[in-house]
């Protein structure tokens, strides 16, 4: 799964630590999601979607697909 988390975060000028605090996860988790080493659970994906006010499919897409 690829994602636009890094772009969305940079648009808001948030650090990984700041985003992690908002999502109530560790900074490592945010980093791992951004670099594609970890796929978030559905509840966390929904949390990310609500935080950025965008549908999940606008943030996450299956490998190979471009959003």
């Amino acid at each position, binding site marked *: 799964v690829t994602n*636009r988390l*890094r*772009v969305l975060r*940079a648009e808001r000028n948030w*650090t*990984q*630590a700041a985003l992690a605090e908002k999502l*109530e*996860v*560790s*900074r*490592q*988790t945010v*980093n*791992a*999601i951004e*670099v594609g*080493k*970890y796929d*978030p*659970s559905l509840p*966390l994906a929904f949390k990310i979607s609500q935080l950025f006010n965008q549908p999940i499919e606008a943030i996450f897409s299956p490998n190979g697909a471009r959003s």
Partner: protein
Amino acid sequence: MNPTTNVPDDPTDRPFRYSSIFWWGLFDKNSEGSRYMRRRSWIGLAFVAAGILLTPMLRAPLGPEIARFVPVIFGFAAAVWIATTFTRYLRCLDEMQRQLHYEPMAITYGVVMAAALVLGCLQLTIDWRFNPLYVVFAEPIRGLALAVVTRRRA
């Protein structure tokens, strides 16, 4: 600039390292799990030290028959302590840390348990009657065997 996303790199965004996940609870000074594990580890060590110190000291006042249960009590307390520490520690982790951390932590605990077993066997060479392994496993088997033998003789 990050070539894949055209997003400027933030110097505060340190890269992902698996090792940092592995040692998260023990060496990351700022994490809640770290503080929790260090605090609990000291208390766990106090349990072990108390067991080592009190067992020989209590032999004389309690008598050998009762004193042999002292290491069992301390062993049981330590086992409960380890179990609660581990489960509470897992609650401190977020979903990714729990997923990636559980397996290495289980291996670490396995190694610790194996070391405890080796220490128990070493203790056997010093005084087998007060060995927790003997008291927990060998003594009931011996008692059962004796009971069977005496019943047959009767």
